[in-house]
């Protein structure tokens, strides 16, 4: 039997996948970087190179600044809710691990993370609805006057944070549970022998060991919140002709510049800003990881 060269199979097998990556990932990413340096309106044949002008203009664009402000508030709002709540729930579920009912806890908390975004956002939209929603009726019982949740600029941010946290908690709980299962039982035993209560054991044994996991979940939560779009789209669009306050988030502003204002280069510059934010967050995570493992 004549033997074929050893590299033939792996190269042939990999080639189609590499082709897909080149066309669908590498090229568009490079193109985003390139377009961000040009002024282009899709239709025109003229596409002048403008250097960093797009970025300079972004820095004084009130809509972009509003978008980046809103997105940052939402991202950190979601973070501040998701991490402590997720950690507490994971600890509680972990203590009931192995019981049949813990399946219900995991499923019910995780379900919001996986169900389709749009119907889930529609469910919350009804809850927040000023006239028909149960939230206003509920706070009415406590003597708090009805609020127009989706119309007020500040409150609509709160709504977005609540909706996004509701979705992200399940993911945090799941990852924390994996982390908690990796804590060696012997460490708990030792803490217990030293007279620690289960809360103290959790606080001083599990939490320090979970720090890398917490960091990971924090970064994932922040990155995914910087990318929100569907939630803002659904909450802001009108019910019965009454438009809610539009929470301008980064992706929304970018798509509007590109597809409504036909400013492709400008929108690409916004995409680059989003990329930089994500890279900084990822880089920070790696750095913190390394520092920790060295310490």
């Amino acid at each position: 039997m004549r033997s074929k060269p050893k590299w033939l199979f792996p190269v042939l097998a990999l080639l189609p996948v590499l082709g897909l990556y080149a066309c669908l990932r590498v090229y568009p990413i490079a193109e985003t970087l390139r377009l961000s340096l040009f002024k282009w309106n899709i239709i025109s044949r003229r596409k002048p190179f403008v250097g960093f002008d797009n970025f300079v203009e972004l820095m004084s664009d009130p809509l972009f600044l509003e978008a980046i402000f809103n997105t940052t508030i939402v991202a950190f709002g979601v973070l501040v809710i998701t991490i402590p709540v997720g950690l507490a729930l994971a600890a509680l579920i972990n203590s009931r691990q192995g019981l049949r009912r813990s399946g219900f806890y995991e499923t019910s908390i995780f379900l919001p993370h996986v169900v389709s975004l749009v119907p889930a956002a529609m469910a919350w939209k009804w809850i927040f609805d000023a006239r028909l929603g149960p939230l206003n009726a509920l706070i009415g019982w406590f003597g708090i006057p009805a609020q127009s949740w989706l119309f007020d600029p500040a409150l609509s941010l709160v709504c977005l944070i609540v909706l996004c946290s509701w979705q992200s908690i399940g993911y945090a709980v799941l990852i924390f549970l994996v982390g908690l299962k990796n804590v060696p039982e012997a460490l708990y035993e030792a803490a217990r022998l030293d007279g620690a209560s289960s809360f103290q054991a959790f606080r001083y044994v599990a939490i320090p060991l979970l720090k890398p996991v917490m960091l990971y979940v924090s970064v994932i939560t922040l990155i995914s919140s910087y990318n929100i779009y569907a939630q803002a789209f659904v909450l802001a669009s009108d019910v019965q002709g009454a438009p809610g306050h539009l929470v301008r988030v980064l992706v929304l502003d970018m798509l509007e510049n590109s597809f409504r204002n036909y400013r492709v280069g400008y929108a690409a510059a916004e995409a680059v800003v989003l990329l930089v934010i994500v890279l900084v967050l990822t880089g920070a995570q790696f750095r913190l990881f390394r520092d920790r493992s060295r310490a």
Partner: protein
Amino acid sequence: MSDPDHPSSDVDRNTPAGLAIDVVLFAVGLMMLLPLVFLISNAFKTPPELLAWPPTIIPDRPTLENILGVLHETPLLRWIGNTLIFAGISTASIVSTSAIAGYVLGKFDLPWFPAVFGVIIATSVVPFEVYMIPLYLNVQAAGLLNTLPGLLVGYLVMSFGIFLVRQYVTTSIPDELLEAARVDGAGEGWIFLRIVLPLMRGPLGALAVLAFFQAWTAFAWPLVVTANKDTYTLEVGLALFQTGFTVDIGHLSAAAALALVPSALFFSLMRRNFVRGVAGTGLKE
């Protein structure tokens, strides 16, 4: 039921403190489900009951009016069909590209493979939204706007899938097994299809569920690529339907519930696979 991995479960679990934890967790679980429960319940309510306070969980006089109305007003079933086809092909593509690329990158060492793997992982850091516009322009130039291939372009490969398979292949498939087959004269293609692929059923199953959900819940890309009622995916159709001026809460809830129930059911059936896939993403660094 005791879990052998958790000696603490040998301890009596039904202490007062344990039961208190159960109460808290039950309450939290119910609260997490409540918005979805309300949504489904609203789908079956008559207009007067929709305004009732406190809102009822089980409708007093359940009606199918909303659901029938929505099916009449919108091509919802068609949207579900579009989404199933889109998600199905996307899943097939992601599973097969990940299987082959993960296997090759894990078991063959050509000098430039680490660089290739590095690039694949690096692209996964970049959010889809960042390169969506150039991708859109390409799809437009190719005349694929508003078509299934155009829709699929964003969802054919998944870096995490390649990572997952590579990880599995290097840790769980011994080189000796492959060598033995080679000595017996088996071709590389045969080895991949007949020996490696069956062994990867576990991780590929987890990946398939993950890929399917990713496509099923995709929003921004289908929103810009599809352009009319016949090509919308479920998420896009629903999001645009709810911007209409004349629709009422009952109909909206019915449409949303019809979209929600299949994904929730599918998740409940595939929970183990899904959790495995998602937990895998958490362990990647």
